[in-house]
């Protein structure tokens, strides 16, 4: 009796969260899907009409779309490479016995807590500015011509900023994983004459594989949605050189008022995100049992 009572109470306690998330997922997504088949522009007073696949075809044949998808991939892969490689190196370094380990950790994770617009503006104005930035000062100090980062290398600049924001996350996760590495096994390998490189390849790397997978998957979810960093630095330019898919859809919706087109882009973004999501869910799901 008691269990049955508990069960129905449990159902009641779960219900609000489930219903809210169900609404949050289904209603806007359903509306996006519906709008994606409409000719619907907020500036067009004649109203809406059925468009069929027009919006998708329009998106699909627009060179800006391919540029944006390409930029999205470069941005995600660039940031992932930098954060995972440097993150592993830094995690291994601060896992060693060092003086002031607590403070070193605090300094290294700090960028993660800087909100995206602030991070982007700091880098844009204080570090990468072609005449007053620290990079320009450094270049002048070494007698080089300063680089106009956002004009010459817009996408690279954004990759640097975003990598700076996410490096702490990768480092922290990998450090957590490193700390559960079996020290005795390491020592045994060392005694058997395994060099540092072979110990890294045969012991450390396999041990970190799972954490790396998690870092890559979770970061990808967030990196696909990079927006504020682009907004405050390059505005997606020059041309479309630093426009990712998120920014392209934002521009269609908010600057061109093309509701139908933006909705079609949104559906494409959902499909792309789903590829990643499936892998992440598997990785997490395995851990639930």
């Amino acid at each position, binding site marked *: 009796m008691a269990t049955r009572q508990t069960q129905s109470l449990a159902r009641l306690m779960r219900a609000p969260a489930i219903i809210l998330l169900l609404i949050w997922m289904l209603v806007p997504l359903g509306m996006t899907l519906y709008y994606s088949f409409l000719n619907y522009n907020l500036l067009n007073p004649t109203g809406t009409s059925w468009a069929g696949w027009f919006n998708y075809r329009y998106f699909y044949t627009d060179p800006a779309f391919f540029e944006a998808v390409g930029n999205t991939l470069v941005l995600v892969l660039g940031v992932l490479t930098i954060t995972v490689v440097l993150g592993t190196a830094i995690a291994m370094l601060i896992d060693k016995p*060092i003086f002031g380990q607590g403070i070193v950790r605090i300094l290294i*994770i700090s960028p993660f807590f800087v909100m995206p617009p602030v991070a982007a503006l700091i880098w844009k104005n204080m570090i990468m500015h072609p005449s007053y930035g620290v990079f320009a000062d450094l270049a002048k100090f070494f007698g080089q011509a300063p680089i106009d980062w956002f004009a010459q290398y817009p996408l690279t600049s954004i990759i640097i900023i975003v990598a700076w924001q996410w490096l702490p996350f990768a480092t922290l996760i990998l450090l957590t994983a490193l700390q559960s590495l079996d020290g005795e096994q390491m020592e045994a390998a060392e005694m058997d004459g395994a060099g540092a490189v072979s110990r890294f390849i045969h012991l450390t790397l396999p041990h970190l594989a799972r954490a790396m997978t998690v870092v890559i998957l979770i970061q990808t979810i967030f990196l696909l949605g990079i927006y*504020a960093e682009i907004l405050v630095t390059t505005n997606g330019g020059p041309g479309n050189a630093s426009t990712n898919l998120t920014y392209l859809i934002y521009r269609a919706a908010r600057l061109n008022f093309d509701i139908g087109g933006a909705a079609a882009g949104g559906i494409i973004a959902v499909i792309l995100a789903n590829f990643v999501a499936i892998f992440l869910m598997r990785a997490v799901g395995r851990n639930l049992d």
Partner: protein
Amino acid sequence: MARAVKTRTRIGYSIAAWTVALIIFFPILYTVITSFKSEQEAIAGFDLIPSLTLESYKAVQTQNDYFRPFVNSVILALGSTVLALIVAIPAAWAMAFSPTKRTKDILMWMLSTKMMPAVAVLVPIYLIFLRTGLMDTRTGLVIILMLMNLPIVIWMLYTYFREIPGEILEAARMDGASLRDEIVHVLTPMAIPGIASTMLLNVILAWNEAFWTIQLTTTNAAPLSAFIASFSSPQGLFWAKLSAASTMAIAPILIMGWFSQKQLVRGLTFGAVK
């Protein structure tokens, strides 16, 4: 002898680690330093010693009314977190202590809602906000931020609640504790650390959110993330002022973040890395 070598390697590692840490932290440090400079000093070239003037902090308040976005940030971060907890605590409690066959599926489905790119629902949310008058209101944004972080909150609470031994509950039930006793005297004391950790991480996430806050506010409800983003245009060249605004915007959350390293790993990896 061996000891001396050990100390020497330790010093070597320490120098390397501190160098890396200072390089990574440098942009933040330099922003804080610049915030204490005058505007002329700020663009006068590389200089780590400020004149310690507070004029930029005053200017941000008097010229830009810094106080309002700051209050908005506090209200949005706390409001959305508290609201999420109210919905999430019963749900996570039920799933942790009365699991059914479908609990795992429900949790995975909740996680999947987090995978939905925000930009995919930009159009409908924007239009709903325009038509219902929620645009540029704190109410609207609190709801969005709450829904956005709800899956993470439920997941984190669930992983914490699951660590509370079930035998304690059984023992309490055997002793004739009512459901109310169970919750008030047994579960609550054991659950509070987990709830506090979850709250901390969620406040950080909500404070730093910068997609919806920029899309759905103009002036009235704009929190710091939207306010600072507006500095990107003409005012961008007032660096000392920008630095002062930035320093104030990140300082509270940075300090909270330093205390939440463990929760961060747990919350953002959905328990996959511990």
